[in-house]
């Protein structure tokens, strides 16, 4: 074994041990955000039931067990959820759709054009781009509303993410090497009976501009359709 290989191995085990008990996909993915209202669980972006629309889904604060924990979960008034859309291919957001709660209402702004100097880690609410609002649903409600061509939802939902998280911890720690994951039937979905807080926005593609060439083309995977680069951030008021 080469010396640098040994270093990677040894250092790698330390790295991997550090990741035990942390949950994929983005659920409680770092100590600083775990158990916090900023903590993003998952991000989805897909074609809507109307193919002219794109749907953005941010799930947060997972895992929430059913019952009182879910019923008592709230969106913080200090935390903005921001959907970022890069439509030029430079991985800097050109448009954002913002959501933030006041009292029982989630307010939505955008899509707002982001000037280059305003992109990145800090944001302000684009109040001039108010788009609409929806009452935050309670556990037994599914309240939706529309504005500026978009449709909105905010509230608790069942977690859509499926993963044998417990076995994953064993796999990455080496405890179950060399076997690895369990076969179907023996494996267990950690998230199957858990909830999350969700913000959902369905947006007409006409509001998002033209999509740039797919980034995979820059690393040898050609022929993919043009695609926006999208991500979600949570930002706290300072």
């Amino acid at each position, binding site marked *: 074994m080469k010396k640098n290989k040994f270093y990677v191995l040894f250092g790698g085990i330390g790295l991997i041990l550090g990741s035990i008990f942390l949950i994929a996909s983005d659920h409680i993915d770092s100590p600083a955000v775990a158990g916090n209202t900023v903590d993003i669980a998952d991000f989805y972006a897909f074609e809507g039931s109307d193919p002219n629309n794109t749907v953005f889904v941010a799930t947060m604060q997972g895992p929430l067990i059913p019952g009182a924990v879910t019923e008592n979960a709230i969106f913080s008034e200090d935390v903005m959820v921001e959907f970022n859309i890069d439509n030029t291919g430079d991985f800097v957001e050109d448009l954002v759709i913002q959501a933030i709660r006041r009292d029982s209402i989630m307010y939505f702004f955008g899509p707002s054009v982001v000037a280059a100097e305003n992109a990145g880690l800090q944001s302000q609410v684009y109040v001039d781009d108010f788009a609409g609002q929806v009452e935050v649903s309670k556990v037994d409600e599914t309240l939706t509303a529309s504005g500026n061509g978009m449709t909105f939802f905010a509230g608790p939902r069942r977690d859509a993410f499926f993963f044998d998280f417990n076995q994953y911890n064993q796999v990455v720690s080496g405890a179950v090497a060399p076997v690895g994951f369990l076969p179907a039937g023996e494996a267990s979905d950690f998230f199957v009976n858990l909830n999350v807080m969700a913000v959902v926005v369905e947006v007409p593609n006409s509001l998002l501009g033209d999509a740039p060439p797919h980034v995979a083309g820059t690393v040898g995977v050609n022929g993919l359709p043009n695609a926006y680069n999208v*991500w979600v951030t949570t930002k706290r008021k300072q």
Partner: protein
Amino acid sequence: MNIRTIKLTGLALCMGLFFTQCVDDDDNGNVIEQATCNDGIQNGDEEGIDCGGNCPPCFDGLDFSGTYVQEDIAGRPGVNTVFSGTDMVKNNYNISAVSDRAAFQPVFQNTLEAYHDIYGQALEQEIDYETNILGWDAATFTTVLAQFDALQVAPNGPTTYYDGTNILTGRNLSDDVIDISLTLMFGGTSGARFDGNNGTPQLTSDGVGPGDRNFTLPFPYLESPLSL
């Protein structure tokens, strides 16, 4: 009752009729709608009490001022959790901009190789990452993960994270992103390098699917929360 009284009464009745008629007319006009913006109840096309619709936006009077600073971020599933390795790196990743991630690439590559070393050690053989089904070597794969960490979502055409033919056109609720990610990490050029067959470790599937979840719902697409 004298004539003067009769005249005044008649005038009053006419005026009353006139004003009543004015109010009736305004039920269909703009005047009454503006008046409802101050009536303390949600009516007309208002989205809240005296706001929204033809009234002022409902956030008037609410405070949205201030600067909001990033504390968490998510693009593709699992990237930070699986590849950042240490708590410090994970925290730093969450407060970084997507376009400023070059420093994470070598960390991600080390982590990817370290996962292979664990199984190499257990099997007492040298095991390194092998170029995956997309033709990406370790450096390219981890560059894609670190520096292009966003979902690519195609506005024209169906969404899939990977369906065996199409790839990276978004992420559906139903996409098995864990199996896809594991296959890209451990599947090698064939996709089946460590699939649990022929005495190999099972590292390309976690063995679970969506179970009884319903992914065919209308907006907001997610199921109602589970109760006790």
